[in-house]
């Protein structure tokens, strides 16, 4: 098969607005009296592509496919615009071989699959990333001239004409199995994906440039992972039941990035996604003497001052007698090391269900097997940055208090002493406060009863089912109870988002 496709996206908008309706019975622009505003704009982008495909299928036994695409986009220019992306795949269903026929009852599917291919990705939100545009604003200046906001215009940023397609090159092998009269089904996939010429963070340049460095296709990324699914479905007497489990995992690694200074604050070759750099904690000093003894051989001045009882003692990993982050470059990271990884690993799900007569029950668990998280902000620490940006939850009560404190001593506290200024010295990313965000959660449980159809047909009802369902019923996690391991982040800081709700619902399904 050969084909051609072309897409053109065009948008156009206009709006007009006035406030102060003379009467709310006439909600029309012309009835408004104040604050007249209008706006409008247009945009367009297009893609075009040629593709060809050859399929081969021999008795569902041998399968092969060859694909090729030649794609172009309006978002890139010149020789960066077009690119060719081939892909191949093949499969062999051993169960369809003649020599297998007598075993079909035991193993109806045993299919090996494999593929290799490249796909293109236009990783830019900008419709015209190679055009330098001059930002201008209409009556948006805050420096009033003649009592009014003036129009403004600003310096355009740098753009790159070198931006082009990212090539996602991947291969995978897989196995599909159906056995024991299809009671057992399983599939397994292993994949390797290389994102070549990825648009990564802009390279670092001396600040005298005076503007941000344009992003270009400057790095390679490799990810490896697997997905597997095993399901069992059977019936014992009148009880039907099923179990289904899924498990997946993947890791991403930067394999190429131009990091001239080897800075650890951006990509570098060999960096795993989600790496957390931090200090190693010795503990909280229980007394001034303990802190002084620690400071005698470990100078913590680079992190702050006024160290005392209730402050953190950090470990001098490089043995230079002081705690700092070095030059922040690979090989000179001072006392920082990789203390964890925030990528959620081993995501899993487990569904259990059973039916007996009219009753049915199902449970769905989900979770993450391994994940570290360095939580920050007021929700985690409690006291941060003065009265306007601090929080006081029950967990925060476990802060350090010395002997003789009117609130009672708490020498083995989880949190250091609360400070309203200079608190950053105790709130460095560090091993003591690294959280495990691994969890198992009963995401949904349901019990239902379907009334026998003989009864219902008398009432001219096809089916009637009553059920009770619960979402987010319980969670097992070692993470601080302030946070939900399924929803940690948030636009305003860690934990500052609308929480997942525990929902219990009763329902009735009726079909006529």
């Amino acid at each position: 098969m050969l084909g051609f496709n072309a897409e053109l996206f065009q948008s156009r908008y206009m709006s007009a607005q006035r406030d102060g309706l003379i009467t709310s019975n006439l909600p029309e622009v012309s009835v408004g009296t104040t604050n007249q505003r209008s706006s409008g704009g247009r945009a367009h982008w297009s893609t075009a592509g040629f593709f060809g495909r050859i399929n081969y299928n021999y008795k569902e036994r041998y399968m092969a496919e060859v694909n090729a695409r030649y794609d172009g986009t309006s978002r890139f220019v010149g020789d960066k615009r077009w690119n060719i992306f081939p892909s191949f795949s093949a499969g062999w269903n051993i169960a369809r071989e003649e020599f297998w026929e007598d075993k079909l009852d035991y193993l109806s599917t045993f299919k090996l699959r494999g593929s290799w291919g490249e796909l293109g990705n236009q990783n830019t939100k900008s419709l015209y990333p190679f055009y330098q545009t001059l930002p201008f604003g209409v009556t948006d200046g805050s420096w009033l001239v003649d009592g009014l906001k003036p129009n403004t215009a600003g310096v355009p940023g740098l753009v790159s004409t070198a931006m082009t397609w990212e090539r996602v090159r991947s291969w995978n092998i897989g196995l599909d199995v159906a056995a024991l009269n299809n009671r057992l089904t399983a599939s397994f996939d292993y994949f390797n994906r290389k994102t070549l010429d990825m648009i990564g963070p802009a390279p670092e340049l001396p600040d005298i440039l005076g503007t941000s460095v344009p992003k270009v296709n400057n790095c390679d990324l490799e990810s490896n992972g697997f997905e597997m699914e095993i399901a069992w479905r059977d019936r014992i007497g009148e009880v039907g039941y099923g179990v289904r489990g899924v498990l997946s995992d993947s890791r991403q690694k930067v394999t190429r990035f131009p990091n001239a200074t080897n800075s650890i604050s951006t990509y570098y070759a060999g960096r795993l996604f989600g790496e957390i750099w931090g200090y190693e904690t010795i503990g909280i000093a229980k007394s001034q003497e303990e802190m002084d003894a620690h400071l005698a051989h470990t100078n913590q001045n680079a992190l702050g001052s006024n160290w005392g009882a209730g402050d953190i003692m950090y470990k001098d990993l490089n043995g230079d007698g002081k705690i700092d982050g070095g030059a922040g470059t690979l090989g000179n990271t001072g006392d920082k090391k990789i203390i964890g990884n925030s990528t959620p690993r081993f995501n899993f799900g487990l569904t259990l269900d059973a039916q007996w007569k009219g009753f049915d029950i199902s449970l769905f668990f989900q979770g993450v097997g391994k994940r570290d998280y360095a939580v920050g902000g007021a929700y985690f620490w409690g006291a941060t940055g003065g009265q306007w940006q601090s929080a006081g939850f029950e967990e925060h009560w476990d802060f350090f208090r010395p002997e003789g404190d009117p609130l009672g001593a708490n020498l083995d506290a989880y949190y250091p002493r609360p400070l309203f200024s200079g608190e950053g010295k105790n709130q460095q990313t560090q091993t003591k406060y690294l959280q495990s965000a691994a969890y198992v959660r009963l995401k949904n449980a349901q019990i239902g009863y379907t009334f026998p159809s003989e009864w219902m047909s008398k009432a001219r009802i096809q089916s009637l089912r009553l059920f009770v369902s619960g979402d987010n019923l319980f969670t097992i996690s070692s993470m601080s109870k302030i946070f939900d391991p399924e929803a940690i982040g948030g636009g305003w800081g860690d934990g500052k988002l609308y929480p997942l709700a525990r929902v219990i619902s009763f329902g009735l399904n009726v079909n006529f």
Partner: protein
Amino acid sequence: MTKNIKSYIKYTCLAAGVLFGASSCNDFLDRSPLDQVTPQQYFNTESDLAAYAVKYYNFSTHSGFNIGVFALDNHTDNQANVGGSNSRWVPGEWRVGESGGSWAFGNIRAANYFFEQVNPKVKEGKISGTPTNINHYVGEMYFIRAWEYFQKLQALGDFPILKRTLPDDHAVLTEASKRRPRNEVARFILQDLDSAIFLMTNKPAGGKNRLTKNAALLLKSRVALYEGSWLTYHKGTAFVPGGPGWPGAKMDYLKDFTIDIDSEINFFLDECMKASEEVAKEFQLTKSTDVTNPSESSSFNGWNPYFDMFNATNMEDISEVIFWRAYSGSQNVTHGVSHYMAAGGGNSGFTRSLVDSYLMENGLPIYAANSGYHGEQTIEKVKEDRDIRLQLFVAAPTDVRVWKAGSVEPFKKIAPAILEKAENRCATGYQIRKGLTYDPAQNLSGATQTYGCIVFRGAEAYLNYIEANYIKNGSLNGTSQEYWRKLRERAQIDTDFNKTIAATDLNKENDWAVYSAGVKVDATLYNIRRERRNELVAEGMRWNDLRRWRALDQVKNYQIEGFNLWGGSMQDHFTDETGKNLLIPTGTESADQTPNVSSPKNSDYLRPYQIINDNNLLYSGYSWQTCKYLDPIAQNHFNITSPTPGDLESSVIYQNPGWPYQANQSGFDVK
């Protein structure tokens, strides 16, 4: 192979193209912005230039929930806030940054981009509009580049001189990062200001809300004095190019640099005097009356034009104002200055050192024999018969806080607001009244005030002239004497400054500016500095004045003090309805009450940083470290310009004296 495919594809494409009515695929994919402006389409009219320039007005003005520019003198010997500044006044607490800081070039690039785009078009006459206006807006951009460079000069000293935009090329950028000696930077600023003065008009559309030729002259006067006095007082140290230990000396690219420092000083002081004189003759000082409060029968304004100058809604016609920012409720550009001032102290307060520096109306310092000083029993007594500026701008409990037709409300209820919550508190007991409004139309709730903010005013030119003249000549010429008398006349003090000089005893002056380089200056120069301090108080000049005068070497365990809390009758002001005294001095605290004022055992005067000892690095007072005369450059700038990553000191950029290269390390004293 690709080529074959391409040509094959071309044919297919043509066939498909016919269907689509397009002539080829590439035309189909050529999509340029439909509603965005490319630089080639801009800079064609004078209003384009005006819109660009006004975007880069980057001046300190009122904004948000605070007392605006009147808080800029915090952390000096003039003014203090509640929290204090550890980084400035505790040795070792200011640490080298990891990235960012003053080593930034965004607005400089914006100006250079403008010149690259606009100057050729101006030359070819391609910009529509009147030549006066076109030139004016080009002049504004020269002013803006000069202003940006002046911020760099004050913060960092030596700095790269950059006149063009640079490509994103590491080698080019590294080469351009080389620092130039500060006197060259200052000369570059003056050149830009000369261009601005040549191109600009004094009557642009928008009046004194826009930059003008006069504003450029004033800035020139300020910059020239800054550099002239810096070189004078820092001469012979690592803080001047060519001085002993100057870090530029070890750079290969500066090996041919020479300087005749005395002629440089003369050059800058001369430039200052010339520019100052031009401004001073244009801007008459706003008159002051001897009225210090509005009365029930008066209007909210008009009782003292000098006081009104700082809270006028329209400053256009005020003779002394050179450049100001306007605010407007309907435009949603507002500030909170009077809300916080009327609420108490707005988290600031004048120091005893400042208040004591004001002269008596008879021209004598308060300590002089027969000065007539009324003592410190109350703040009212402190203010009696003093310089009108003290009477106007420092609030006492009986001063008026809010004016309403037919009634006035004094500060009494809250003054001095030393026990309020931090954002309303007066840290020292001497509350600020400069910039307070009595206009009932100004809504005093939150940040909704709409009166203007002065950026430049004429009095500074008078002061700059006098100072430059005296540093240069060691005596005052007729013009200086006239300027000084005018300033004193407005302040309602005896215009005979020689009387003041004769009565000045530097040992009795609690003023950092008594010193340069740790040595006392002469009484005349000190009184010139006193005049500047008293006139420009709370206008954000003090910190940079102290740095250029090198007036901080001697600061060690210096206690900031406020009003006389324990030695007079003021302590009786702080009672609740039942008459219970609310003051909890340090040392009398208990489990359920923390101290809220300093102890009378240490001082009769309120010491805002000696109230709580725990975690308080300022408890033993302010101490200076000489490295802080200039800011440090952040670590990352060395790293990215080093030939070998990690070897910071191999960078073409050198660190300022006394600062290490590595992030989070403290500076040290420069000998």
